[in-house]
């Protein structure tokens, strides 16, 4: 019994039997002369090339989610307030007056907060724009392209505490500097004071939150503590760099910071891990809780440094490498010197 095999046997096909594939052999173009005046030199014009636009989010429904939800909440609160006020007025006019006044005040406060938040997020966008321009200028050795950026910087920080130092640095710019040198110079010399204040702020908050976590008796309480300290720190840093503090701004900054931290480059992670390692070697003589404290402190410090990076209008010259180590040491120092009785839970 012979079954036909499932595979096909090799067959030799004669060349004549092959069907001509028009796609593979297009009719060739004959050579010909072209008059010189008709030939135009091909210019490599790269200026027309558009930069690739970021991919559009194709989840359309998400765009509607927030406004719809917002409207619903606002309507519900409004209706509820209306019912409350009408009920209180019908109960007693004095009670009604009190409730109306309260509602008015609340609306005023919310309005102010919203306005602040909006201006804060506008300022954040401006800062991001400035950062992008500065990054672009750092790549080129042209001359005079940075004038627009300088003008924007001056305008942006005209009413802030940074104004004096910034203007001092701008007037000291040498006429021979090219754009890259201008950015490097400003980045080093125009924001010294703000940088120092911000870094001190990061250090203080990190050590504080580290010590608090190390000493707090309830584990679940730690998270709240760290969150609270982090938010305070973000607000303070934003103020230092002349960004209007507000709940909205704070939230937006926190979101960006966390995003950036989540996608931090491998090198940064390795560096931070190194300092964390150092921290743990320091704490092996202390206790597990102290180790947690150092972890929390380092997290706060990283958040703070990222906030500085986001709020600073110019790219950072070079990050203080050993800052995280110093913070770890600071926490240990506080724990050992400030609270000698922790010696009891040493392992």
């Amino acid at each position, binding site marked *: 019994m012979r079954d036909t095999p499932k595979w096909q046997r090799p067959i030799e096909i004669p060349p004549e039997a092959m069907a001509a594939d028009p796609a593979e052999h297009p009719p060739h173009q004959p050579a010909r002369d072209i008059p010189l005046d008709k030939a135009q030199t091909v210019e490599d014009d790269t200026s027309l090339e558009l930069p690739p636009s970021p991919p559009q989010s194709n989840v359309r429904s998400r765009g509607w989610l927030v406004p719809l939800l917002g409207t619903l909440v606002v309507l519900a609160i409004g209706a509820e307030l209306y019912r409350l006020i009408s009920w209180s007025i019908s109960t007693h006019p004095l009670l009604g007056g009190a409730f109306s006044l309260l509602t008015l005040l609340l609306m005023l406060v919310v309005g102010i907060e919203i306005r602040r938040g909006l201006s804060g997020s506008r300022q954040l966008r401006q800062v991001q724009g400035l950062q992008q321009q500065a990054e672009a200028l750092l790549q080129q*050795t*042209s*001359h*005079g392209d940075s004038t627009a950026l300088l003008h924007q910087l001056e305008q942006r920080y005209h009413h802030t505490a940074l104004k004096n130092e910034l203007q001092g640095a701008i007037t*000291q710019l*040498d*006429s*021979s*500097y*090219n754009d890259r*040198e201008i950015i*490097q*110079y400003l980045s*080093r*010399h125009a924001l010294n004071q703000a940088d120092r204040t911000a870094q001190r702020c990061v250090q203080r908050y990190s050590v504080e939150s580290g010590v608090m976590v190390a000493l707090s008796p309830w584990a679940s309480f730690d998270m709240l503590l760290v969150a609270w300290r982090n938010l305070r720190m973000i607000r303070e840093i934003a103020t230092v760099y002349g960004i209007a503090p507000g709940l909205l701004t704070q939230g937006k900054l926190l979101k960006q910071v966390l995003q950036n931290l989540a996608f931090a480059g491998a090198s940064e992670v390795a560096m931070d891990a190194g300092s964390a390692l150092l921290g743990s070697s320091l704490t092996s003589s202390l206790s597990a809780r102290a180790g947690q404290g150092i972890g929390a402190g380092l997290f706060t410090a990283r958040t703070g440094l990222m906030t500085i990076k986001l709020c600073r209008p110019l790219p950072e010259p070079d990050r203080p*490498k*050993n800052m995280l180590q110093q913070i770890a040491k600071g926490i240990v120092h506080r724990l050992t010197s400030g609270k000698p009785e922790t010696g009891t839970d040493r392992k």
Partner: protein
Amino acid sequence: MSIPNKLGGLIRQSGLTDWPEQLKMSVERGMEQRVRLAVTGLSRSGKTVFISALARHLLQSEQGRSLPFFAAASEGRIVATRDLSTESPSPFPLQQCLAGLQASPPHWPNSTEALSEIRLALRYRRKPGLGRALGEHSTLYLDLIDYPGEWLLDLPMLTLSFEQWCKQQQALFASLPRTEVAADWIAQQSGIDWLAPAPEGLRQRLTERYRSLLQQLREPPYNLSLLQPGRLLMPAELAGSPLLDLFPIIQNWPEAPENADTNSLFTQLQQAYNDYCEQVVRPFYRNHFRHFDRQIVLVDCLKTLNSGESCFNDMQLALTTLLHSFQYGRNSLFRRLFRPRINRVLFAATKADHVTANQHHNLDQFLRLMIEAAQREIRFEQVETRCLALSSLRATEAAQARLDGQHLSCLRGHRKDTGEEIALFPGEVPTELPRAEDWNSDRFRFVDFAPRPLPAGTLRPEHHIRLDQAIEYLLGDLF
């Protein structure tokens, strides 16, 4: 005569007394606390001005004002700087140079005629971090030497025999403008039988003519660089010495040099060449040109643009052959202790103040063109290199002019030759090698400017262009 005395004499003779000093220097070098910076440049490329300006700015660096891109100074970590040149047998005439630049009207230093040394000690605070464990303060010793640029071109002669050198010179004298200028001298040579006993005074006469030829080629409009032997142009203490009666044989090179008479010109010249290399060039090289750690090569690009293609080619050749005399490579700790090599090189186009600021980038590119070959060889040794347009002492002010309805940036300064004040747009520096017909057109007019007076008090960043970046690149990692 006691035994201790004898021993003492022996020790002195063998140089053992220098050992502690040498050991100390080696250790300091190993700790990267002693740096020898090679300031390399052909004659009139601005070595003396560079060294004076560098020393002047570093001596003031504790104020942290004038060098914003030199991180150690602008962060205020430099405590003070001391000039230790007086310890050297031939100190660099810093005060004299500065006095000339501070006078009214100020003038550039005279061309250097002898070797001199400058040593600076910089006391600084270490960066916060692990290094602080070694102590908060540390000192960096910086050694520089100044010398006539002409002498530098003798260094490549060390690797050549007399015959090779003559062949090289033949090739050089076969092209313009040397052929034209030296026509009579070459003709004179063609009638000479090199192997026969020479008449009295012929060698001296030919040398004299050769010397004036070299001087002529060095001056405008030729501005050539590759002129050997350099001591003919700048003899210093060797003036009138028979060692300098030396010139290459260009015409009818003898077929059988081994048959030369002991009194022939050929034997005399060969002997003079070998003596010159061994007694003049080699000590100069051995005592001053080994053991550098960092190097800055100063190049005057504008001179070549003003004087044309032959000047460009000659300078390019001179720089490429010259840089073969230095040792490049990375330093291990052991190597740093005993035989350091140059591990960082900065190529600097000087006179950046003689072009408008928007041309600095082009000047940079043009410098790259000139040193392309040299840079490639240095890179091969995995040594960092960088190009920079700088001006150690700024002679001009940037200005704006309104011509035909559009703004034009230009320079204001005093002419070096007449001293009158001019405003000038000197033209654009080409970023590619200009074509033959572009060289002598009206495309550029780079004028030599007289210096602006240097204040006796505090210096500011506008007294130099990118000198601070040069310092940061060359020395910044040591602080």
